[in-house]
């Protein structure tokens, strides 16, 4: 624990002190300019990493936010006479507001559509900066004077230190944020938006908040950029810069503050790299060597696909060969960036820092931080004594898809404390009914009452009323650990407001969430796998993890959608025992299942659906003897045949 603290925090402090001390040792305005740029790009890339790394979306608007922030700072100085800090605050605010506004339409979008929305925003803001000549000076550019800072004028060296302080503050705040519930929610969102909503975490506000905060950092960097260069042009913030910024984040390594820092150094140094011929040749040769080594090693060990090994070698080879023939490397800068970025994206998708982090943790044997002891289950999931009254009532519920009547007038009453079985042949409407109850689909008609009150619409809102569910097709947050999967859904623990989280004053609730989550993992027999990422668990364990995650919502009503599907027999026994234990705590359960033995053993009441309608209801034994149920499952037997069979 101590070693971990010493190494990781120590490295941060050493680098910060070194960076701060360089201007005292070397008085060179060129070096100082580079360092300032490094600090500014550091802030910029940390902001970009929120969307690209944590939310996992290709964000093409970040260069635009840099530009908007720069103009906002510059104009608030020249037009409004603001000081440095207030001008920077204006920058951040502009980024926060515009980022939030853009996030609203971009909210529902994934992948290519998100990239397109950000791309058009980016083009639109360049147009506005270019054309609103009265304000921005258009293509002529805008001169910005560096304002006073608390009554003092700031020289280049002082400004560098100021940028460094901002970088350190941003670093601390983002580390606190990203290691909190917020960071987990961002990643959960990336892996499964549906489950994020179903677990009551909310895709909506996290996506907006993440994007707005990232953009605010971009604009803050823009403000510093304006005061550093003191001259702004719309052309500086276009597409090409965006590609370079993405190169920085991807090459440095996603989801990593150090990665953003390395990426920033690279972005700051690139122009110099291109202007020095020898340096460029050396670096491209080194790149080719690295691609060759990694590619050959990957091919020998068969850990990479042939394309992944060969394409970077070809791209770097092209760079080396090109560097011999091309007269002026500056002319080819875009192609050079493209080839480098291509090699990295294909050959080293985790980036330098992802690679180094794996290597370093092995080298120094840094253990992950130790976990607190598991809480007592009674405090996490207090045992309730249900009164047996009606909990969930469905009245004539209907859901049609075009002409398909998936659920066609279903009325069911689930009593509290019961395990209520829902069975029926395939296509009988069980899953659709559950999807309607949990808010994924809006009902076409009918009423749904919980405690006599109508259910709200939308998964997120339903999840907040105390209904929690698992999914027939697993919807785990696959990149998160088992523990994080449960923690992200934990209800009633996270109350600290955002500012406290940013300042790192919310660690207490983090510990509590951890021990509560461990208790739930113990309930499903997964405590020893707490640190393993969900995608690496066995199939049975993944099903159990979904149950633990659903329990983290501390539900009144738990809906298990075919929890035994595909389980091996020993796992089925574990599952049955698990459901008993959950039942003992007074949680009402709706169990959709095909295994009749499981249903018979567990359920107090069983409802049978066929063709979207209820055909029978009663105890498992009653239902099994019901002729309509037998008909639905096995079809009818006419008398002649049945006589033959009995003879």
């Amino acid at each position, binding site marked *: 624990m101590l070693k971990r603290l010493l190494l990781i925090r120590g490295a941060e402090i050493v680098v910060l002190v070194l960076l701060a001390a360089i201007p005292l040792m070397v008085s060179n305005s060129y070096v100082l300019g580079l360092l300032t740029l490094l600090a500014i790009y550091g802030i910029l890339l940390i902001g970009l990493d929120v969307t690209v790394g944590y939310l*996992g979306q290709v964000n093409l608007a970040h260069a635009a936010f840099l530009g908007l922030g720069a103009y906002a700072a510059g104009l608030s100085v020249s037009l409004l006479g603001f000081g440095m800090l207030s001008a920077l605050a204006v920058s951040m605010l502009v980024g926060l507001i515009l980022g939030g506004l853009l996030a*609203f339409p*971009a909210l529902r979008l994934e992948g290519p559509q998100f*990239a397109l929305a950000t791309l*058009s925003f980016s083009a639109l803001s360049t147009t506005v900066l270019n*054309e609103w000549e009265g304000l921005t000076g258009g293509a002529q550019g805008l001169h910005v004077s560096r304002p006073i800072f608390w009554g003092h004028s700031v020289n280049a060296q002082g400004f560098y230190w100021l940028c460094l302080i901002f970088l350190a503050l941003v670093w601390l705040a983002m580390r606190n944020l990203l290691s909190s519930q917020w960071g987990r929610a961002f990643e959960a969102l990336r892996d499964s938006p*549906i489950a994020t909503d179903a677990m009551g975490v909310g895709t909506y506000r996290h996506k907006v908040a993440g994007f707005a905060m990232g953009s605010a950092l971009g604009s803050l960097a823009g403000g510093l950029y304006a005061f550093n260069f003191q001259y702004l042009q719309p052309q500086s913030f276009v597409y090409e810069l965006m590609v370079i910024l993405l190169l920085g984040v991807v090459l440095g390594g996603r989801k990593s503050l150090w990665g953003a820092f390395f990426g920033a150094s690279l972005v700051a140094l690139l122009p110099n790299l291109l202007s020095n011929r020898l340096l460029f040749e050396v670096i491209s040769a080194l790149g080719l060597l690295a691609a060759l080594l990694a590619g050959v090693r990957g091919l020998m060990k068969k850990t990479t696909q042939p394309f*992944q090994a060969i394409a970077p070698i070809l791209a770097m080879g092209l760079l080396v060969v090109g560097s011999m023939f091309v007269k002026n490397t500056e002319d080819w800068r875009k192609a050079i960036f*493209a080839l480098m970025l*291509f090699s990295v994206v294909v050959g080293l998708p985790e980036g330098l820092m992802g690679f180094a982090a794996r290597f370093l943790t092995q080298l120094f044997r840094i253990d992950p931080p130790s976990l607190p002891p598991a809480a007592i289950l009674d405090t996490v999931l207090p045992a309730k004594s249900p009164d047996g009254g009606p909990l969930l009532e469905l009245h004539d519920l209907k859901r049609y898809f075009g002409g398909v009547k998936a659920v066609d007038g279903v009325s069911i009453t689930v009593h509290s404390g019961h395990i209520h079985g829902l069975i029926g042949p395939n296509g009988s409407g069980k899953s659709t009914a559950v999807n309607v109850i949990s808010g994924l689909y809006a009902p076409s008609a009918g009423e749904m009452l919980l405690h006599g009150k109508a259910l709200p619409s939308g998964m997120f809102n339903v999840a907040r009323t105390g209904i929690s569910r698992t999914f027939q097709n697993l919807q785990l947050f696959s990149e998160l650990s088992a523990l994080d999967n449960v923690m992200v859904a934990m209800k009633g623990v996270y109350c600290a407001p955002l500012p406290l989280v940013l300042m790192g004053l919310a660690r207490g609730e983090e510990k509590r969430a951890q021990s509560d989550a461990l208790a739930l993992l113990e309930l499903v027999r997964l405590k020893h796998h707490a640190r393993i990422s969900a995608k690496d668990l066995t199939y049975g364990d993944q099903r159990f993890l979904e149950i633990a995650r659903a329990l983290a919502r501390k539900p009144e009503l738990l809906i298990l959608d075919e929890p035994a599907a595909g389980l091996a027999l020993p796992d089925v026994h574990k599952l049955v025992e698990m459901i008993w234990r959950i039942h003992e705590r007074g949680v009402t359960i709706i169990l959709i299942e095909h295994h009749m033995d499981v249903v018979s053993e567990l359920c107090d009441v069983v409802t049978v659906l066929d063709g979207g309608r209820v055909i029978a209801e009663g105890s498992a034994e009653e239902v099994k003897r019901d002729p309509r149920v037998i008909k639905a499952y096995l079809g009818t037997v006419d008398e002649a045949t049945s006589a033959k069979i009995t003879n």
Partner: protein
Amino acid sequence: MDFIIIAQMVVSGALMGLVYALIAYGFQLTFSTSKSINFGQGELVMLSAFFSLTLLDWGAPFWLMVPGGLLFGVVLGLAVERAGLRLALEQKSEGWILLTIIIGLLGFSAAENIWGRDDRPFPTPISSDAMQFFGVSITPLEISVAIGVFSLMGLIELFKRKTLLGKAFEAVSADRDAAELMGISATRTVMLSYGLSGLVAAMAGILVSPITTVGPTMASALILKAFSVAVVAGLDSGFGVVVVGIFLGALESLTSFYLGSGWREAPGLILLILALAVRPNGVFGKATIRKV
């Protein structure tokens, strides 16, 4: 008089809009088979146009230049698929977004250095003498754009409906897994769609260049509008792109007339963001149902 000017603006804008529609149609071709689009499609248009111009410079006759340029587009489309798409699609990741952007940038830089940064005229045997229709002047060149766009789109639609290969294309669009189980190679079909979309891009380049001239910057100018058309219309409606393309082209030409040419791209971009916000599947698109 004022009305004539507006009508003139609308007509010439709409004819330009058909080119955007054609490029957007190229997005639809690849989106239907693989749910991916080439973010560097504009560069494909530009590179094919430059290549065709070089063919003319070498003394190739016009009738030979057209198939040559189209073939070049097909080759580029296939190259993009191989280098940028295939691995990402196999891994079911969205890495292709970044990779196609990168490949586009490479193409842009290559064009800048091979053919220069300046815009160059693109000679054509088709006359650009205006003809008058009710006071609105249209050139045969502009008409050739409309003919080219409609005939190519019609041919491809015919191919999709009438040939076995085209049916395979439709099958993969409808359900990739089911098509694979029926013995259709989805990988080859995606290749085919990228080849076709390269062909479409090259055609757009050859059609538009005589009107706008050829230069590296034509890529970004065209691609943003094509994106707008594709998104506003929806990525699965061939009819929709034509309607939206005509509408957007006309709107753009009116905007640049009334607000100044610097703003010409603004309405398309705003429409794009609005369409994504209000109807992410496009005005003519079908809504999809989330399944769990």
